[in-house]
């Protein structure tokens, strides 16, 4: 059933509506929220919501409980290819927990949070941004990791990044939900403005596996589930662009690199010269790679999950 979670009057003859599809069967009180579209330029979650919605429709008799699917927390952003909330230049994921009688973004954030609170698990799906491509991964802060890690392992991702908490991140949807006791997992995968079907299917398999583990789905087939690499901040190496120019990758995304390998070149099309090489800062799995070619000095080129150098063994 389609429900409106929050609505607000725009200036001219239009209401902004945040909607969810509440898919329900059986007697179980268990509830899972699948939420995406907080950042209007991240679209991987769109395909996941569609595939999951279709699957659940076809398997509704096997469901026991409620799956709430929120495909677009920021509909105006999705409609206008804007990451933030149009008109406010505001990152929606910095507005939680919101304010009941606040500004438009604050009110919406409040009502969304109230609607999701109390669910057994929430999965907040992000798609990196237009600049970077990411392998399917789950990110969580150290204090939440004890509770969340067992569920993260069910979701068929390649990697779980347990990071230090920062005050500024207290305004995220995930932090706000986790701090009220609603377990929320943040997924990062793919790249902005595009759909990567294989990753989407991988996560949908993971969500189905989670539902089976929670006994909300029975009598369904689950494929093989990946065991993610779980890692702390210290195990992640960063490669930032050493210069301004056009970045041209020379390494396969998702491959294993050795420290010192050339990940790509920063070139100058005007002079036809290589300005600098972007070099692997450590050995390991290239789990983030720059997709958008134009760079400044400092632009993130890659992230590497540190591993023993196996190439030279």
């Amino acid at each position, binding site marked *: 059933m389609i429900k409106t979670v929050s609505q*607000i*009057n*725009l*200036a*001219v*003859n239009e209401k902004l509506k945040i909607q969810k599809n509440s898919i329900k069967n059986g007697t179980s009180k268990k509830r899972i929220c699948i939420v995406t579209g907080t950042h209007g330029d991240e679209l991987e979650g769109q395909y996941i919501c569609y595939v999951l919605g279709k699957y659940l429709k076809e398997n509704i008799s096997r469901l026991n409980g409620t799956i709430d699917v929120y495909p677009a927390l920021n509909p105006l952003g999705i409609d206008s290819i804007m*990451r*933030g909330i149009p*008109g*406010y*230049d*505001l990152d929606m994921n*910095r507005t939680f927990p919101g304010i009941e*009688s*606040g*500004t*438009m973004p*604050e*009110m919406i954030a409040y009502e969304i949070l109230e609607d999701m609170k109390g669910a057994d698990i929430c999965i907040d799906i992000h798609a990196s*941004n237009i*600049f970077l491509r990411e392998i399917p991964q789950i990110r969580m802060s150290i204090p939440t990791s004890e509770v969340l890690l067992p569920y993260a392992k069910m979701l068929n991702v390649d990697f779980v990044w347990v990071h230090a908490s920062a*005050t*500024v*991140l*207290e*305004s995220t949807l995930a932090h706000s939900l986790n701090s009220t006791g609603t377990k929320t997992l943040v997924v990062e995968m793919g790249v902005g403005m595009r759909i990567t079907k294989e990753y989407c299917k991988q996560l949908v398999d993971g969500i189905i596996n989670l539902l089976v583990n929670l006994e909300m789905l029975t009598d369904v087939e689950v494929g093989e589930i990946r065991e993610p690499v779980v890692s702390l901040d210290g195990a992640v190496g*960063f490669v*930032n662009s050493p*210069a*301004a*120019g*056009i970045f041209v990758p020379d390494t396969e995304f998702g491959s294993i690199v050795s420290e010192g390998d050339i990940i790509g070149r920063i070139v*100058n099309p*005007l002079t036809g010269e290589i300005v600098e090489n972007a070099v692997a800062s450590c050995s390991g799995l290239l789990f983030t790679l720059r997709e958008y070619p*134009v*760079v*400044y*000095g*400092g*632009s*993130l080129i890659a992230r590497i999950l540190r591993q023993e150098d196996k190439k030279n063994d």
Partner: protein
Amino acid sequence: MTEKIIFALESVYREPLEIKAFCFGDTSKKTICIMGAMRGNEVQQMYVCARLVQELKILEINGHIAKNTGIMVIPCANYHSMNIGKRFWAMDNTDINRMFPGYNLGETTQRIADGIFTEIQGFEYGIQLASFYQPGRFLTHVKQMVTEFTTDDGLAYFGLPYALKRSPKPYDTTTLNYNWQLWNTKAYSLFTHSTDDMKEDSAENALNVIMRFMKKREIINYPIHAGYVTSIINESDMLQIHSPCGGICRIKTKIGDVVERGQIIAEILNPLTCEIFAEIEVPEKATVFFHFESPLIVEGTVIFKLVKNNDF
């Protein structure tokens, strides 16, 4: 006066972004730093700093800058955005004022913030010319974020009718003001009437306010009007009125006006028929501190901030 480039950033096709600082007095001393535009629409903020540079040049020549004090003014840290009509860093839409204290090995705007902060941390006083995220008019005022590190109550030295105190929210912790305080600078944000448009009278007022603060802190010695007795208000004590609906916004008062209980100070109209959707009524006698200013308004938008006139 000495002029120096505190941070430079190469770009593939544009000339490098060179952030310029203008220093006066004893340049080995970090007494006061004034930070102008960090966003591309903060033209007024840049202009106030430019006027300040002009005035300080004269004061310096005439020996009106106190001995053993150093003044640094940075009019514009982000003209790359200003030159192309963008508010935030054009490539990734990030806000330099959400990147402090910065990170010299991080993303571009983290590096810019780091480059700036490396130069401007350690000053005794810091004044940032700030802007509000929505179109509107303010009474010129100064704001201090009250943190566990706040040691100073110099708000009254600006001689403005109103000064605000604000308790920081999580998203404030990456602003310049917050980080200045974290590194022991007494930091203030100065808000003038407007942002995108340049207003000479408002700029002159802001200039005087900064000069007055420097005079009272004995950084400059130059005769200047003493200003007002400042009412210090907690931001949370202001009356904040949200628009009850969307439509055309017709404001029927102006900033600084004392408005009476029951007075209609704005109308929201149906944008297709001009029928009145809502009238905004004053809940109690107050002074108009902020009003929204744009023809169209969305439901929930802050349309007024009023200071209660308890004293009358």
